[in-house]
């Protein structure tokens, strides 16, 4: 039992999310907030980037998420896991942003949204030939567009289950819907994605200008 004294006291310096949030709420503890940030900024950025289809927009939304959490710390009511609350805040901000973009007709129905250049992938440069690299980028882009074609309620399930690896039960808590509904949305989403990807294979969208100009340069050298 004396062991747990040490762990209890040392855990003050590496806190659980719930402890950190308590410190932020009760003491405006900036160190605790920084700890939450370090732990969660990656996942939240990824969620927002995939929900909006745009990496930079994702970063902005993630920043807004944490700002909101800190701004509303006094009225926070601990109910369940902090991460559930965090995912929910981020998702709601994504929905708001998507609705705003929709009103300004910035969303295209074929999924061609967001900045292709910003979606550059992390590939070791020496690994693939330029053609293979291009093929990989094109495949990523068609997947991105397919996901962006999904309705937002289906997209969120795909992003949370497949990309952020939450269990169906956790997703149900975040979205405040039954677990069965989460799974049926997932099934529907996968079926739709299958159709979209099949269509994309039949009508390949041309690669953007950037890769093509690389090929032109090569020709000029010759």
């Amino acid at each position: 039992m004396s062991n747990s004294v040490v762990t209890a006291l040392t855990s003050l310096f590496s806190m659980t999310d719930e402890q950190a949030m308590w410190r932020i709420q009760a003491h405006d503890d900036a160190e605790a907030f920084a700890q939450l940030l370090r732990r969660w900024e990656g996942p939240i950025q990824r969620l927002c980037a995939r929900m909006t289809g745009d990496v930079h927009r994702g970063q902005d939304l993630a920043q807004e998420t944490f700002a909101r959490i800190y701004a509303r710390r006094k009225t926070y009511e601990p109910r369940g896991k902090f991460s559930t609350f965090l995912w929910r805040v981020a998702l709601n901000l994504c929905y708001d942003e998507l609705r705003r973009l929709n009103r300004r007709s910035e969303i295209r129905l074929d999924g061609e949204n967001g900045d292709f250049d910003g979606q550059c992938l992390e590939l070791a440069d020496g690994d693939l030939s330029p053609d293979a690299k291009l093929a990989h980028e094109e495949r990523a882009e068609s997947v991105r567009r397919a996901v962006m074609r999904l309705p937002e309620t289906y997209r969120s399930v795909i992003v949370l289950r497949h990309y952020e690896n939450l269990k169906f039960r956790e997703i149900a808590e975040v979205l405040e819907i039954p677990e069965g509904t989460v799974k049926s949305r997932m099934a529907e989403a996968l079926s739709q994605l299958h159709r979209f990807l099949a269509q994309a294979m039949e009508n390949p969208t041309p690669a953007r200008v950037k890769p093509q100009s690389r090929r032109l340069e090569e020709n000029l050298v010759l």
Partner: protein
Amino acid sequence: MNHPTREEWMSYLYDEISRPAKAAFKTHLQNCPTCQKSLDEWRGVVQNLDAWALPKGRFKMAFVQPALKWAMAALFALGLGYGIGRFSVPSLDAATLRAGIENSLRPSLENEIRARLGRELADEVRSMVAASEASLVANLESLSAKSAAGSIEQTQVILSAYAAALKQQQTQTTQLAGALETLRKDTERMALLTAYGFQRNEQQLVQLATYNEPAASFPGKSGSQPNP
């Protein structure tokens, strides 16, 4: 044939089912081309999803990285009860006994630590200030003795020596801050050890009060012997 539902296939696809259920679904797949086709389609999508990777780097957020741990130390000294409060209660008697001990000892412990911290800090500050003052005065005296000779160059030399003395005082102030930091750490350590020892004493008292107390982790024993 009884097909699994789409929802159940999702659990299967993402491995959120028991091993027996998984085996049963696999068997069904072998006998049901419809379900196999659906599953193949879904699996194809799942594999494609992985192609959409995001740039690796985490982008630092522009929040201020905060300062330090005076607040932490203060909370530490005051929050000894935090760790103690997390322990589970073995039995009702022990609980009341512990509550009694805690209530009487914790405040006096807190006060003692705070008083001690205050006293030692004050002493340390006083002695360091006195020491640096004394050395600065000594420097100034020797400088003024030298300046009695009085040419311009000598005055310049004296002024630069004065600047050096000021710098030395700054160094001493920095050292003072370092000493305070060390003192704070020692105090933290002391608080930790005190809480540690406090907890052990408390445990022994509890064990004496309730004869069943020693850990039931020795399955061989059929209850412990009363040990007056």
